């Protein structure tokens, strides 16, 4: 016989966590969901619109091109930052005072707030007083980020690479430090080339940190806002207007809460989808062939 006293009071113990999650995630998200299906005129007047805002947003040419730019930007910086970060991590000294010194130098850009990074580069690239802008002009290149979309793009990409490659480098550095010495010894005994050591020992052992690094960088860059906003203001024209900025203009300047709520959700789902596909693909790579098919 079961003579245990049934007592469900322990369920109350999850209440604090439930409240925390509710206030930090569920309630704000639901507010957005709420707005996304209504047309709000004032505190008393509102109409249910269903999927109308979603359809409208998906067909909006300005947002479509911002989304396209956003993908180009995120993929470009990932294509540069990941290999560069791995390369830097491989070159960083492993012990002694040099290791600490290099570590601090590499970390430095990560400590600077986003909008300050924008300001730094805004001044840095000015043709009259900025070191980079002035030097390029003196070298005969008519560099101007407020006129040339290409200059603006290249500058934003360089700025992002400068700001965020250290994150990848640090993650990889810690990943490399965690590889036991025996692996390198075994590789030497097996007469592996430097490339083979990288390809078959270092890179596989970096997979986990790289997954974290790439996901973080993807999400971060997909939501980039302050840096290009300060540097170019989204221009020239709308050539560097990325999604967050397009959204911010709509939500705050034009006060279209319904459409911008709908777009926020679409935005969120895109990030979720891309991250999930990427993560699943990487994890699937590590399985055996026969398991993979199943």
């Amino acid at each position, binding site marked *: 016989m079961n003579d245990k006293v049934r007592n469900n009071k322990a369920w109350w113990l999850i209440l604090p966590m439930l409240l925390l999650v509710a206030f930090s995630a569920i309630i704000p998200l639901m507010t957005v969901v709420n707005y996304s299906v209504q047309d709000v005129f004032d505190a008393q007047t509102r109409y249910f619109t269903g999927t109308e805002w979603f359809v409208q947003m998906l067909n909006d040419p300005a947002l479509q091109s911002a989304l396209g730019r956003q993908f180009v930007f995120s993929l470009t910086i990932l294509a540069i930052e990941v290999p560069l970060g791995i390369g830097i991590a491989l070159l960083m000294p492993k012990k002694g005072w040099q290791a600490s010194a290099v570590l601090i130098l590499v970390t430095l850009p990560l400590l600077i707030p986003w909008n300050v990074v924008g300001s730094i580069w805004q001044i840095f690239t000015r043709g009259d007083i900025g070191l980079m802008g002035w030097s390029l002009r003196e070298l005969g290149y008519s560099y101007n980020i407020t006129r040339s979309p290409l200059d603006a793009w290249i500058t934003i990409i360089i700025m992002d690479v400068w700001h965020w490659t250290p994150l990848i480098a640090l993650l990889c550095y810690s990943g490399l430090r965690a590889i036991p010495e*025996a692996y390198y010894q075994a590789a030497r005994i097996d007469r592996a080339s430097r490339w083979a050591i990288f390809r078959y020992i270092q890179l596989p052992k970096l997979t986990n940190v790289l997954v974290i690094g790439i996901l973080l960088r993807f999400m971060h860059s997909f939501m980039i806002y302050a840096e290009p906003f300060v540097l170019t203001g989204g221009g020239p024209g709308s050539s560097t207007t990325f999604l967050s900025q397009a959204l911010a203009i709509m939500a705050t300047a034009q006060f279209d809460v319904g459409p911008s709520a709908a777009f926020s959700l679409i935005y969120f789902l895109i990030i979720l989808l891309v991250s999930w596909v990427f993560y699943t693909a990487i994890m699937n790579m590590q399985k055996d062939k026969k398991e993979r098919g199943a």
Partner: protein
Amino acid sequence: MAEIALKSLAHSYLATPGSPEDYAIREMTHVWQQGGAYALLGPSGCGKSTLLNIISGLLEPSSGEVLFDGQVVNALSPEHRNIAQVFQFPVVYDTMTVYDNLAFPLRNVGTSEDKVHERVLEVADVLELTPQLKRKAKNLSADEKQKVSMGRGLVRDDVSAILFDEPLTVIDPQLKWKLRRKLKEIHQRFNITMVYVTHDQLEASTFADKIAVMYEGQVVQFGTPRELFERPAHTFVGYFIGSPGMNLFDVRARDGEIVAGDTIIPLGRGIYDAVAKASSNNVKLGVRPEFVEVHVAPVEGGIEVTVDDIQDLGTYSILSLHLGDIALKARIDEDSPTPHNNAFIRFPDDRIGLYVDEFRVEIDHE
């Protein structure tokens, strides 16, 4: 395949070693003959792995030379020494299949795929890895991974030697025994010099023809398992080999007799002379528990001892005895009479060893 010689080899991990204790390997000269199966036996931290890494070239010795077939190879990296080494913990290339793992050392030197295929299948067969060949190494169990590690060493048939650094630590006991047999088989089949590091005497004696016992950075004895058992060259070998280890106790010569504590030990003239002549105060007698004669009743030349404990291990028993302050162990067969409270023991002259400053001194028995 090669004969490996170590000449006046010494190694310290410190930049400026002073005392002998600073050395992980104290100066030694040693030869591993081509085609031998050797074990390097010793407790943790005695320098076994250091010595192995010096032979393979992962570590450069502080002084002395390593010679392969008479050629000094000190300056050669492991890649150029053509030597295989298996480590204590499995090292596999995670993203590769078992097949590719085994093929890796061959492909690195551009071996033809036909040859690679043939060797991989042969080694996989010996190690019973054939069903796993297509699996990714990452997903194997620890002992399968270790078999892959060993396979990468065995797949190269032209190596100077294969070094094993406690390779069976992670393997469960049943498979351990089987793999040791496999290694022995492989050794007989390919006639490759093998050096097997372990701290397990059973593992050493089942694998090796000759065992080098290491203690505090030096090889204290190099011999067959039988020699190590019957004539330990150093008190450490006596204590380390055998279960339980050798009985060792301090003795001195007094008025024509050998005494241990206050007890007179009746032994032959030859032993007394050797004890009396000893140049040091550190004089010990050693006798294996197997060779201690135990009698229930007084016998001629028998020393009375108290019996503290009897451990019945089935076919034999281990007695814990006290001779004055000296604790001794004796091993008796199951059919010999078991003493109670006290017993009378004798040490056969030819089974006793004399150790001066811990090293064995040969006795001239008249």
